[in-house]
């Protein structure tokens, strides 16, 4: 139905012309789903924007190619003609449902807008249609919810509203740009189910863009793999998973930790191809399987938490008295033996980040005990706590925001050394920063650079180096690989495992991603609504989950064709 031929898109940047998409061609057949996979910067979103003719001139330009929709070239249409197609014949849903809905209008109004624009309906008809659409996308009591504002809905519901808007005019093609990336796994499953059922009902085509191969396996009939603006492979989904041809596809498939078993070190893209995209012909040595460390009661305990709670005031009286509060962490108790990794999984809002920050007293816990090798952390005064921070460190989720943009990497690494007087002289400290860079696999020559000059993965390495600077014993990794591309994720996970082996570190690894947690942890705690609902070894959690919530989480993971 849609044919893309030799499409190229260029962007004008300060450094000159940059080709984001390079001569790509692919078809989207009627009623089928095509999955477009690639990492950040591969050009997949640019491709979808080009199909809607939403590339902003003069910076961006579709420099060559054709986009044929039922035989007409969309690139030759005038803007008013194109407007009739946008939202009517081809519509689009975006990654971030919060920011793609206008916060000052009700969701009903926003759905009706599309209907009245394209279908010439009057107010009453449009309202009826909007309620019907909300029903179809599975919003409970749609007659009431049609009057809700976006902030009154949950993330999953907002994405449903976006879908309702997108299908309002019965488009023939729906472009979904990372529609489930910002959502929890259980919600993701619901949205994927919804998209599938709507597709079969209306017989529309779907272009599904994602970085997650497992999701693609769940939903797509055909897969197009993009790498640095080029299509490196396209094939039927089952073929892609069974016998990937291009080394990049192979790498993508094997970089993700599996739910069943993993090698000691995860494969990285560099194992499959070199920088120029040439395949490296070497057979991967069979590696020993990574086994979780057996934890017995005899192991020395590094950190013990008893009945830790943290609540936030929701409503206060005029005199500042707390009338209503939300318990983010609710009487949590756990023990972490020295040298092991505790995985903490749960969906967004379950309190896992609050728990992590409470342990470090970055947030003051409301009540409970934290005992670190016999020291009562809760009783430490301000000065003692500053000294204590040397032992416990944290690596945050977003390497973009956790580095101060105005400090060079060297300054950022020197800071903890200066505060805790590690090293005697300035030159000794500088030597130390070079060692730290080497330790995390970065070139010490990069020390004088600013954070924005690094890629995401390199930046996360800098964050790790900074945490390691004071030679801590215990590190909390708060979603530390979640913002990274799959291929970089595996590198960072390998690095964390290596560092643990070398330095005997103890980790608490917080993540919403169950397969990552499964790979790195020696024991796993599942969190829901501020409580730990289940805690056991990874194998036990995955093979024999006891708690209902754990079971629900496990069944929601997209399995696709990935073994």
């Amino acid at each position, binding site marked *: 139905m849609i044919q893309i031929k030799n499409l190229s898109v260029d962007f004008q940047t300060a450094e000159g012309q940059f080709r984001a998409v390079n001569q790509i061609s692919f078809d989207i057949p009627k009623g089928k789903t095509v999955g477009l996979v690639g990492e950040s910067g591969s050009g997949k979103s640019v491709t979808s924007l080009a199909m809607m003719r939403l590339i902003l001139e003069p910076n961006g330009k579709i420099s060559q190619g054709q986009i044929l929709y039922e035989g007409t070239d969309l690139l030759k249409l005038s803007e008013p003609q194109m407007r009739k197609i946008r939202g009517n014949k081809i519509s689009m849903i975006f990654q971030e449902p919060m920011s793609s809905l206008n916060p000052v209008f009700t969701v009903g109004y926003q759905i009706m807008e599309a209907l009245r624009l394209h279908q010439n309906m009057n107010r009453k008809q449009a309202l009826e249609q909007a309620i019907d659409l909300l029903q179809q996308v599975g919003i409970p009591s749609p007659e009431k919810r049609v009057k809700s504002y976006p902030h009154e809905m949950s993330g999953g519901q907002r994405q449903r509203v976006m879908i309702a808007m997108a299908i309002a005019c019965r488009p023939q093609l729906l472009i979904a740009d990372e529609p489930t990336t910002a959502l929890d796994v259980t919600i993701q499953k619901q949205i994927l189910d919804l998209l599938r059922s709507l597709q079969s009902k209306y017989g529309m085509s779907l272009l599904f863009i994602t970085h997650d191969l497992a999701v693609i396996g769940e939903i797509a009939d055909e897969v197009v793999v993009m790498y640095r603006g080029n299509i490196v492979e396209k094939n039927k989904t089952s073929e892609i998973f069974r016998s990937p041809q291009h080394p990049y596809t192979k790498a993508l498939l094997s970089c993700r930790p599996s739910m069943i078993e993993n090698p000691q070190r995860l494969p990285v893209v560099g194992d499959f191809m070199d920088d120029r995209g040439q395949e490296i012909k070497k057979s991967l040595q069979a590696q020993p399987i990574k086994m979780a460390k057996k934890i017995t009661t005899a192991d020395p305990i590094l950190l013990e938490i008893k009945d830790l709670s943290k609540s936030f005031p929701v409503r206060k009286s005029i005199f500042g008295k707390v009338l209503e509060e939300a318990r983010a962490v609710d009487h949590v108790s756990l023990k972490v033996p020295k040298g092991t990794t505790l995985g903490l999984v749960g969906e967004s809002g379950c309190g896992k980040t609050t728990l992590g920050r409470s342990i470090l007293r970055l947030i003051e816990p409301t009540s409970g005990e934290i005992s670190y090798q016999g020291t009562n952390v809760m009783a430490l005064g301000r000065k003692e706590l500053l000294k204590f*921070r040397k032992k416990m460190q*944290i690596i945050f989720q977003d390497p973009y925001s956790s*580095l*101060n943009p105005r400090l060079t990497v060297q300054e950022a690494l020197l*800071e903890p050394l200066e505060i805790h007087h590690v090293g005697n002289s300035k030159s000794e400290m500088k030597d130390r920063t070079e060692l730290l860079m080497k330790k995390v696999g970065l070139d010490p020559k990069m020390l*004088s*650079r600013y954070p924005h000059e690094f890629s995401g993965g390199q930046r996360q390495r800098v964050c790790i180096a900074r*945490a390691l*600077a004071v030679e801590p014993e215990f590190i909390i990794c708060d979603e530390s690989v979640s913002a990274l591309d799959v291929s970089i994720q595996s590198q960072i996970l390998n690095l964390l495992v290596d560092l643990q082996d070398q330095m005997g570190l103890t980790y608490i690894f917080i993540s919403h991603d169950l397969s990552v947690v499964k790979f790195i942890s020696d024991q796993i705690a599942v969190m829901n609504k501020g409580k730990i609902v289940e805690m056991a070894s990874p194998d036990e959690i995955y093979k024999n989950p006891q708690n209902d919530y754990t079971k629900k989480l496990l069944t929601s993971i997209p399995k696709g064709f990935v073994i």
Partner: protein
Amino acid sequence: MKGVKNNSIWLDAFFKLKKNKLAFTCLIIIIFYFAAGLLCALGVLFPHYALTNNDRSYLPPSPEDWFGTDIFGRDVLARSFHGIKISLTVGLAGTGLSVVIGSIFGAIAGYFGKVTDDLIVWLYTTLDTIPYILLLAGMSFVLGGGLGTLCFAIGITSWVNLCRLIRAEFMKHREKEYVHAATAIGSSHFRKIFVHIFPNVFHIIIINFSLGFIGAIKSEVILSYLGLGVEPGTPSWGLMITDARLELSRGVWWGLAAASALMFILVLAFNLFTDALREALDPKLRGKL
């Protein structure tokens, strides 16, 4: 980001300004004013500005005296140039004081929050309810006239806007992850405020400084005009305009013209330059243009 050179934000801003012809011209004009002010203060330029000669009273502009002479036969051009000295002193000292007060109060209020914040907010809202010119007039009355008082009065009354901005920025930044990260490695409050957050809000201070500078120059003129500014007899634009009020009816227009023209050019150049500076320093626009 590939290929970005290892430039600091200031160097980046400078290159961007250099590309902007208008802004660069304005910068040159501003530098010229500063140089002129300095040379006047050192007595190199127009050293005889105070020389009176009653025979030469009210001479119209001529090739000899470009802007004519005043009632005492003093060269108007020389006095206007010495007015630059006063204006720039008031601008630098007055705005400098207001920037120091505003950014420190704003930083403390925004960073610590709670009671500290309440106190500072109370202070500046109270100050803000009093009409600005009334406050300035009041201070000049209480402390007596003179250049020092004028600078002090302008500084102490004009920090509220900057304080508000800095407070809001600090409230935003203290929740950012890099600040949490700094806490986690054991940074003190002092370090977090001055080493971590301050460099990230510095562009706001710079922009506010240049805006305040224009305000201070205008305030000096207005206050001197109202008789609340510098001592009579000092070569200030404000006093020159006051004197011109009476002279205008006699057809003596050049005193007013010279002072106004010099002020007009300086304020315009500063305004245009500030606009360009704002664009150049805005981190959101970095790497573009």
